[in-house]
């Protein structure tokens, strides 16, 4: 197929989809409308279980099984990346030369690193109270470690980041989520049911039953996953070279 016919095909098909989507949009409820039956019920259920952040309650209590699915996708994607980006037999590692980094950049990175790391952990820990949670805090904590690449050099980063440990951590936190789910079978008859732990006092760190536990498991999993992913990509981009003469 020539690029010209392909473009024509895309334009015709796109015009059809556009027409259908616009027709659908015009019949959707108006933006900002007042009728949100699911939302109202989710808020009521969340308040009944003493979880201040209703979004955390939806994620880790009312739709916890859905989050298990999301987490499995995340885990599978990380495993896929690790397999695809491994060092093959015809490749070797070249030690990257330490590069000169401007002093202000270096100083700024080293000052911000602990602040960013603590912010990430705070965001994970307060997931059931304020905006944030395992998904967001995990990414912040994991990317903050990589400021060390800017502030010091690649070798310093490798020292605080034994990738194998993070791979184990990823698997452990995924199983922690499953085990917390199985524990739900003890208190009641449902997988991932939030009935085992007391709901606690509204708006305190230990409120919400199993929500903080699942939240912490997801936070650890996301942090480990992002560290492993970035490590594999950095390896490929900085260290691994193909054998010359091939």
């Amino acid at each position: 197929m020539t690029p010209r016919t392909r473009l024509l095909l895309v334009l015709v098909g796109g015009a059809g989809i556009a027409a259908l989507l616009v027709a659908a949009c015009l019949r959707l409820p108006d933006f900002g409308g007042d009728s949100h039956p699911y939302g109202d019920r989710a808020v009521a259920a969340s308040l009944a279980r003493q979880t201040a952040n209703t979004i955390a309650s939806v994620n880790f209590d009312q739709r916890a099984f859905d989050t298990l699915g999301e987490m499995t996708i995340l885990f599978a994607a990380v495993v896929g990346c690790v397999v695809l980006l491994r060092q093959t037999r015809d490749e070797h590692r070249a030690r990257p030369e330490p590069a000169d980094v401007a002093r202000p950049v270096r100083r700024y990175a080293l000052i911000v690193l602990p602040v960013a790391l603590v912010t990430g952990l705070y965001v994970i820990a307060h997931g059931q109270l304020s905006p944030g949670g395992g998904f967001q805090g995990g990414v912040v904590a994991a990317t903050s470690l990589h400021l060390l690449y800017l502030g010091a050099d690649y070798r310093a980063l490798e020292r605080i980041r034994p990738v194998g440990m993070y791979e184990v951590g990823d698997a452990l936190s995924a199983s922690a989520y499953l085990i917390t789910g199985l524990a739900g079978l003890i208190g009641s008859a449902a997988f991932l049911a939030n009935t085992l732990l007391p709901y606690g006092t509204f708006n305190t760190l230990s409120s919400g039953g199993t929500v903080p536990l699942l939240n912490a498991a997801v936070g650890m999993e996301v942090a480990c996953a992002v560290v492993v992913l970035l490590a594999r990509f950095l390896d490929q981009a900085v260290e691994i070279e193909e054998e010359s003469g091939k």
Partner: protein
Amino acid sequence: MADAVIVVALVLVAGCATVAVAVRDPARQALVLAVLGVVLAVLFTAVQAPDVALSQLAVGGALTPLLLLLSVRKVKRRKGRER
């Protein structure tokens, strides 16, 4: 007032998305995607979704562009060695 912020953010998001597709060089596209991530985070804050804004800021503003740039570097380095 809130409506005005939402409309401005929506227009900016649509514009950034168009530019991100129109820029054909992947390294520059990664930078535009980082801007798109930040603008999306502003839009999500304006429609009262701070949780989503936070994750969009971390993922769209930092993680995805970083992964794209690392891939560009890997692919370019291979091409450079072949020549």
